[in-house]
C-alpha cells in the first residue's frame, strides 16, 4: 500500500510540474490592424462596459456615463480599484483580468508597465485628435509611435502653489523668476518668521517633485534620453546634485518642522491657513485645496507659478486621472463600444464633462467653464512650454519618492538615494529588454 501511495504522489507531482510549464496568464492574442470608430450614438443596448478608476478618479466619468447611457442604451460600470491603484491594476492585468477602459497615467513608463502593445487598443486614428489644442495633441499618451491613451484633462504640472496673502503680508509683490530668486524669497520669508516650504514625507509621494523641478533644465537638454540609454546614471553629478540640493534646502530649515510626519491633508491645510508660504505640488493637490475651500477663497488666497533652475519652465507629469486607456479584451464588440465611449467623451460629451468637472478644456472648440479657479488656469497655461518629468520621459519609473522620503527620515544619504534608484531603474530597464542594461 505504501508503494502505491508513493506512486500516486509521484504521479501527482509529475502532473503538477507539467502544468507548471511557463505561460503568462496576462498574455492575450488580440487582433491588430486598422479599427473602425463607431458613431458616437450607435445603439449599444445590452452592452455593459467596465471602467477601472482609482479612489480619486472614480467620480470623474459620472456626467459622461450618464450622457452616454442615455444616448446609446449601454450600461457603464465604474469599478474602484483600491490604492495603490497602479500596482493593483498591473497585478490584475498580469493575471488576466481586464476592464474595457481604465484611468491610466499616459506616460511611456506606465504604458510600458501595462505591456501596451499586447494589452491596449491603439488609438492612432481616433476622431477627436484634431480637436485638441495643437500644443497638447501629442504631449503624452504615445509609446513607440503608437497612441494608447486618450488625454481627457490638463496633464498635471509640478510647480509652486503659494499663499498670495502670505506673500503680500511680507512685501513680496512679484513671483520668483528663477531658482536663485525662488530660494532667496524663501530665505526672506524665513527671516520674517514664516515657514517658506511645506513637505509631507509621511505620505512620501510629493518628495520627488523637488528633484524633478531641479532637473528641468537638464531634462530639456535630453537628460532622460541619456539615462534611458544607460549613458548617464542617477549617481552621476546631475541627478545626484539635484538630490543634494533638495537635502541642503531641508537642512537649511526652509521646510516645515513636522516634515517627517506631515501628510497630504496637513499640506493642504497648512497652505490655506498660511502656516507655510509655498508648496511644490501637482494638480491633485489643488483638488485637495478645492475640498477645503470654495473657488472664491481659492482665487483670493492661492496662486501658482512654475519654476526651474533657469526660469519659469514647468515640469509636466500626467497622472492617472488625466487619461484613459482602452483594453484589448478579445471581445470585438465591446472593444468597439469602448472606443465609442471615448469618442463620445472627447466629442459630444466633452462640454458637459469640463462643465461638470470645472476643469480646463483641452479643445479649442470647447469653452473652459467660468468657474475654473485662477491657479488651475495658470497651471494649464504652463503646460504648453513645460518639460517632461521622470515619469513622462524615462522608460521606467523607479521608487525615487520612497528613497527621498527615507532621506528625509534620515535613513539614507543623497548618495544612497541615487544608488537605490539607479539599481531599481536598471532592474526595470533590464526586464523591459532596454538596450544598454
Amino acid at each position, binding site marked *: 500500500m505504501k508503494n502505491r501511495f508513493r506512486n500516486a504522489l509521484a504521479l501527482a507531482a509529475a502532473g*503538477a510540474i507539467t502544468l507548471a510549464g511557463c505561460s503568462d496568464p496576462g498574455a492575450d492574442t488580440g487582433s491588430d490592424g486598422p479599427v473602425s470608430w463607431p458613431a458616437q450614438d450607435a445603439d449599444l443596448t445590452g452592452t455593459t462596459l467596465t471602467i477601472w478608476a482609482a479612489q480619486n478618479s472614480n467620480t470623474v466619468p459620472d456626467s459622461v456615463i450618464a450622457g452616454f447611457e442615455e444616448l446609446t442604451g449601454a450600461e457603464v460600470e465604474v469599478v474602484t480599484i483600491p490604492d495603490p491603484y497602479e500596482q493593483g491594476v498591473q497585478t490584475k492585468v498580469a493575471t488576466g483580468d481586464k476592464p474595457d477602459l481604465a484611468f491610466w497615467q499616459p506616460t511611456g513608463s506606465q504604458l510600458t508597465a501595462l505591456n501596451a502593445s499586447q494589452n491596449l487598443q491603439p488609438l492612432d486614428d481616433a476622431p477627436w485628435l484634431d480637436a485638441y489644442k495643437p500644443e497638447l495633441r501629442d504631449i503624452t499618451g504615445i509609446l513607440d509611435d503608437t497612441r494608447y491613451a486618450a488625454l481627457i484633462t490638463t496633464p498635471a504640472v509640478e510647480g509652486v502653489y503659494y499663499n498670495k496673502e502670505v506673500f503680500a503680508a511680507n512685501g513680496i509683490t512679484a513671483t520668483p523668476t528663477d531658482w536663485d530668486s525662488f530660494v532667496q524669497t524663501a530665505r526672506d520669508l524665513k527671516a520674517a518668521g514664516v515657514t517658506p516650504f511645506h513637505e509631507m514625507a*509621511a505620505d512620501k509621494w510629493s518628495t520627488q517633485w523637488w528633484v524633478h523641478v531641479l532637473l528641468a533644465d537638464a531634462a530639456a537638454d535630453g537628460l532622460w534620453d541619456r539615462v534611458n540609454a544607460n549613458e548617464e546614471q542617477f549617481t552621476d553629478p546631475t541627478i545626484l546634485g539635484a538630490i543634494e540640493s533638495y537635502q541642503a534646502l531641508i537642512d537649511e530649515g526652509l521646510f516645515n518642522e513636522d516634515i517627517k510626519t506631515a501628510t497630504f491633508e496637513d499640506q493642504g491645510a497648512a497652505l490655506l491657513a498660511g502656516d507655510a508660504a509655498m508648496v511644490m505640488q501637482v494638480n491633485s493637490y489643488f483638488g485637495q485645496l478645492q475640498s477645503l475651500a470654495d473657488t472664491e477663497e481659492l482665487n483670493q488666497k492661492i496662486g501658482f507659478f512654475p519654476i526651474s533652475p533657469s526660469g519659469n519652465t514647468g515640469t509636466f507629469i500626467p497622472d492617472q486621472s488625466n487619461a484613459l486607456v482602452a483594453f484589448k479584451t478579445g471581445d470585438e464588440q465591446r472593444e468597439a463600444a469602448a472606443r465609442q465611449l471615448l469618442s463620445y467623451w472627447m466629442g459630444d460629451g466633452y462640454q458637459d464633462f469640463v462643465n461638470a468637472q470645472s476643469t480646463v478644456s483641452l479643445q479649442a472648440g470647447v469653452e473652459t467653464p467660468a468657474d475654473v479657479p485662477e491657479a488651475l488656469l495658470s497651471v494649464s497655461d504652463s503646460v504648453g512650454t513645460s518639460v517632461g518629468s521622470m515619469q513622462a520621459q524615462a522608460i521606467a519609473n523607479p521608487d525615487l519618492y520612497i528613497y527621498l*522620503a527615507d532621506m*528625509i527620515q534620515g535613513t*539614507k544619504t543623497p548618495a544612497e538615494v541615487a544608488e537605490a534608484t539607479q539599481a531599481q531603474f536598471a*532592474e526595470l530597464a533590464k*526586464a523591459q*529588454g532596454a538596450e544598454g542594461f
Partner: protein
Amino acid sequence: MLAKGKAGPRHQDHPLWFLIPALAVLVVFFLVPTVFNFVYAFTDWSSFKSAINFAGFDNFTSLFTNGTLLNSLKVTLLYAVLVAIFQNAFGLGLALLLEKDTRVNRAVRVAFFVPVIMSALAVGYIFQALLKPDGALNGIIGWFTGSDVSIPWLGSTTWTIVVVAIVHAWKWMGLSMLIYLAGLKTISEDVLEAGRLDGAKRWTMFSAIRFPLLAPAVTFNVATALLGSMNGFDIVQATTEGGPGGTTELLNIYIFRTFGQGLFAQATTMSLILFLLVAILAFPVIRYLRKREDVL
C-alpha cells in the same frame, strides 16, 4: 492503531482512490502554486513583455547584490522576534490572570479573543488612526498630563518597529492566551497539590512547576508567532507601509512593492527566499523548543 498488521480488510474499507478528490484539491490549490513559486523564480517573467524565458540564477544574484533585500530580511527577522516575545508575554500574562473559570473571566477571555478574528487590515488602520500625532492616544496622554502631546508613534526610525510589533502581538495575543489556558488546564492537580504541600510559594509554583509543564504550549505559541509573523504584511502595510525610512519594510512589503513595479519574477524569487528562510529557521527553533519538552 488496532488495524496495524491487518491492512487487508482496512484497505477494502478505504480504497486508496477515495483520496483522489482530496488529492486533486491539494494539488491544484497547494502543490501547483508552490511549484510555480519555485519555477517562476528562475525566469524573467515581468509585466513588460508576454514571453517568459528561463533566466537561471539571475534574479538571485541581482537581489543579493542589492542592499534592500538584506535590509528587508533583517527587518523581518527583528519583527518576528519582537512579535514572538510580545505575543507570548501578553498571552501568558492573560492566561494566568484569567485562569479561574469565573463568569467574568469567561467574558473577558472572549473580549481578548475578538481581535484574533478581526481583519488584520482593519486593526492596522484603527491603530494608525489611534497612533497619529493628533490621534486618540496622544489625546488621552495629553488629557492626563494637561499638556499638548504630539508624539509621532509611527514616525520614529528606531521605535516604530517595536510599536508595530506590539500591535501585531495585540491582535494575536488572544490566541496565545487560549493555548496557554488549555496548557494550564492540563496540568495535573496532583502535581500542583504536591508542590503546595512542599510549601512552594506562588512564584516557585509558577517558575518551577507550572511554566516547565507548559512547554508544549510554549513550543506551539513561540513557533507560530515567530514563523507566522515572518509572513507579516497587512498590519505593517496599514500602519506604516514600511516607513519611516524603510525601517519597517518587511520582506513581504518589499515583495508587494516589487510585484507592483511589474517585476513579477523577482517578487517570486523573494517569496522563495522567504519560504526558504522560514523553513531554515523553523527546524532549529522547533527542535530547541521540543527539547524543552523532554523533561515531561
